[in-house]
């Protein structure tokens, strides 16, 4: 089993969304970066519907005029831009937290598991999922998933292409993104991707057969049965207030 490094506070600096800043780094950021990360802070506190450009300006320590100059498309354009940036930050975390030399099936499981864990621990996403799930609704159109697909494709497809060729890599990455977004956004009683055993069941059971013959994989793999870990986790979480 590959090792997955969790994304968490290292005791120094600040985590804003998926972005980890070192102590004192905020003051050295460009205005544009402060605007974007300031917006993430606002989303974490108040959500999308209650955040205004004035809030973003105040958080970023600049004027509203500056914010509008940097983001002429307004708050919707800022949200789209931040979505792309934060997706890229999440992917950066994934690159550093999984073992890229692992067999491909393990790697795919680890990526899904790490992504789900990072998203579950992300304060901004937790707020949005709890109070404004429509903002990151992955099942209905409205460009929600397209920007994410574009970033993930740019980052993962070249790497996967080394294993399976560009066209197959394209479809595999899209499939994985849709799977992760769906199961993280809308909890399932069957699969909890924050449990590695469940991530393995999903990826090995559904995703890998969609793209590979079993003979292609370097390591034969059987999906694990529903585990005691899964059932105990669900018993614990079902009695708790949802996040």
């Amino acid at each position, binding site marked *: 089993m590959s090792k997955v490094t969790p994304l968490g506070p290292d005791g120094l600096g600040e985590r804003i969304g998926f972005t980890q800043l070192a102590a004192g780094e905020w003051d050295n950021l460009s205005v544009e970066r402060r605007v974007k990360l300031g917006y993430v802070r606002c989303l974490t506190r108040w959500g999308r519907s209650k955040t205004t450009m004035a809030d973003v300006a105040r958080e970023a320590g600049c004027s509203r005029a500056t914010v509008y100059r940097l983001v002429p498309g307004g708050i919707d354009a800022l949200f789209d831009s931040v979505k792309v940036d934060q997706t890229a930050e999440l992917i950066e975390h994934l690159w550093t937290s999984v073992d890229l030399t692992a067999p491909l099936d393990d790697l795919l499981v680890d990526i899904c598991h790490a992504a789900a864990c990072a998203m579950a621990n992300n304060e901004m996403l937790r707020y949005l999922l709890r109070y404004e799930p429509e903002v990151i609704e*992955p099942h209905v*159109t409205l460009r929600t998933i397209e920007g994410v697909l574009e970033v993930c494709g740019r980052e993962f497809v070249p790497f996967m292409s080394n294993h399976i060729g560009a066209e197959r890599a394209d*479809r595999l990455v899209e499939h994985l993104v849709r799977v992760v977004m769906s199961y993280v956004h809308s909890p*399932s009683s069957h699969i909890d991707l924050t449990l590695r055993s469940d991530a393995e069941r999903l990826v090995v059971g559904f995703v890998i057969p969609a*793209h590979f013959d079993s003979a292609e994989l370097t390591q034969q793999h*059987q*999906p*694990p*049965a529903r585990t005691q870990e899964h059932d105990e986790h669900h018993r614990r979480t079902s009695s708790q207030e949802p996040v």
Partner: protein
Amino acid sequence: MLAATIERLGQDGLSGLTVERVAKASGVGRATIYRRVAKGRDELITSAITWELGRFVDRLRAVDVGDGGGGGKKGADKDLFERLELLVVGAVEALEGHEVFQSLVADDPIEFLSEIGGASTLVLDLLSTEFAGELERMGVSHREVDWAMGGEYLARMVMSYVGSSGRVSLHDRAGVASLVRHEFLGWTEA
């Protein structure tokens, strides 16, 4: 009343819809509407959208029963691959042809989604149950995947791929066939 609400939503959008306009379009009094939806405008909109989504799911289910596009075979005789292909094609056409849905999405997507949030979960549950039943009926078996898990997976993937376009064109029958055969049902042949 619900049909009139949908009709007015297409013309007025979410922000422009009023109970008065719905009353006029449906030929009933405002009091009648408030007797049925005590919370007024917001509850009326949510009820109408939920109702319309339910009709949409029923139309998708009807793809199974009909024999259009199946070479004359009745729905029950088609295999799961063929039925899913027809369902995806039908869902894409229905979504793209639904003028009210398209105008709401274009005008105010986030507010529209906040209205249908609960309904989206309902659709997921409905489709999950539907597909689980299909998998059981077709006798699909898999080492470690039960019908409920498989049905839910299928529902999520159908909603995701139909709901937002990706690399595979859903207007191309060959593209749909490939998507169904691999991403949707590749696991059944493992």
